[in-house]
């Protein structure tokens, strides 16, 4: 395929996914918006006023980056895992792409791009909503870092969602990971607290949680404060992307879980 043909194929996959996510916006966008509003209300407005400050900033401003990251992580992951699982199990729609000359790497790119777009869109909506709870105030320390961490995080969890989508044998297989793995990791990754406020043994657990590094870097972009240097967070992100790209490439190229 020529570069133009590759672009058309990529555009087709991405367009189809974006049309789908807007068509069912009640399922794709609304849940994260409502959940975030509840978090902002309870942890920010109600409890936050009692907690006061965390690492020198008011508690509401402290939790905003983590809650935006939560929306990005869950939406990027679930979008890719579900669309891939759906096209594999419901109606075998994946065959439409497998019979075409679209190469495996482009198939991966097409599926994960939808997850990245949804993650960034929902993250942006949640961020805008957060300003209603912070008196229309939005702290921005480094826009480049904010955007970079948002895109890379969405990319990581889109890739992870694709692995889940390839391996899942039933709809339960799609829901298990977000419920029992992702959500606990996000909650324990420093959304609501600084790692320095934990006892030493708990800090050790936090440092082996990859999501801690993502939230740490993202928060630095907003507030200029971080539990660990940002370059470490970026390195963890880079390592995760490399590992997940390799796994996905192997799975899709060999047709594992896709072809008989």
């Amino acid at each position, binding site marked *: 395929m020529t570069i133009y043909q590759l672009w058309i194929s990529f555009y087709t996959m991405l367009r189809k996914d974006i049309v789908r996510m807007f068509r069912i916006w009640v399922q794709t966008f609304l849940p994260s918006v409502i959940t975030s509003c509840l978090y902002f209300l309870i942890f920010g407005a109600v409890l936050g006023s009692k907690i006061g400050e965390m690492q020198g900033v008011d508690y509401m401003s402290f939790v905003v980056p983590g809650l935006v990251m939560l929306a990005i992580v869950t939406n990027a992951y679930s979008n890719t895992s579900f669309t891939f699982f759906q096209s594999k199990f419901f109606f075998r729609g994946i065959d439409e792409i497998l*019979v075409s000359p679209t190469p495996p790497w482009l198939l991966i790119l097409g599926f994960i791009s939808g997850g990245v777009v949804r993650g960034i869109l929902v993250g942006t909506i949640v961020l805008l909503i957060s300003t209603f709870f912070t008196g229309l105030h939005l702290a921005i320390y480094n826009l480049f870092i904010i955007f970079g961490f948002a895109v890379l995080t969405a990319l990581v969890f889109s890739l992870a969602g694709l692995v889940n989508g390839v391996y899942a044998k039933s709809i339960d297989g799609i829901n298990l990971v977000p419920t029992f793995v992702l959500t606990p990791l996000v909650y324990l990754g420093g959304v609501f607290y600084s790692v320095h406020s934990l006892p030493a043994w708990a800090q050790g657990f936090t440092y082996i949680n990859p999501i801690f590094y993502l939230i740490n870097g993202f928060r630095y972009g907003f507030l200029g404060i971080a539990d660990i240097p940002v370059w470490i967070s970026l390195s963890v992100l880079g390592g995760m992307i490399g590992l997940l790209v390799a796994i996905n490439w192997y799975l899709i190229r060999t047709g594992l879980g896709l072809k008989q």
Partner: protein
Amino acid sequence: MSAPALKITDLKKTYATGTVALKGVSLEIPEGDFFALLGPNGAGKTTIIGITAGLVNKTSGTIEVFGKNTDTETELAKMDIGLVGQEVNFNPFEKPINIVVNQAGYYGIPRSVAIPRARKLLTDLGLAEKMEQNSMTLSGGMKRRLMIARALVNEPKFLILDEPTAGVDVELRRGMWDYLTGLSKSGLTILLTTHYLEEAEQLCKHVAIINKGEIVAQGGMEEILQKHGSDEAKKEGYRGGRLEEVFLKLTSEKTV
């Protein structure tokens, strides 16, 4: 002399379950042919088609589509293929026009070209009224025709039809065959699997019969009928066509 539309050499397939589906199949379909691949259920027809189209991994062997090896020139080989699978495999919540246009996109065809092409195909196949409705509203025959339109949108040189008329009523089936005969006359190479043997006998120039993963007969339609036909078929009151007689003779020899 041009390369054959499909050349399969010593194709073997063993599924993860241990089932041996293909035991070294070799097959050649000349360009422009209307070729029937016949066999009982589970003989290996759909496995051959799946491997050719890139939906099933082979165990060993080679496949060439118009001289392009599907292992080393995958993209080029796939450019020439259109597939109508055995099972309905499109999203019923999508409109037929979108299903066909999206398929064109996966072949790198821009929407400005794909949309008029898809409209013409759907109209030619009698789906003009339905192209903007949800596909779930289509009847069984309409779904089959939509799959044909989808398979033709990339203007393939080689069309694979895996039991395209299964569950389609007689009138629609005849209409589909007329349409496909027209395509064959325009130069399109067609590989057909079907359980309607009288249709294969009427439509196809060449035939291969597969049983238990092995080709048991292959050649021109008349040649096969002459070679393997029996006097049984000439008897008064005989129930099926000549090909049906040959088919039963060749496949039951192996199964009993």
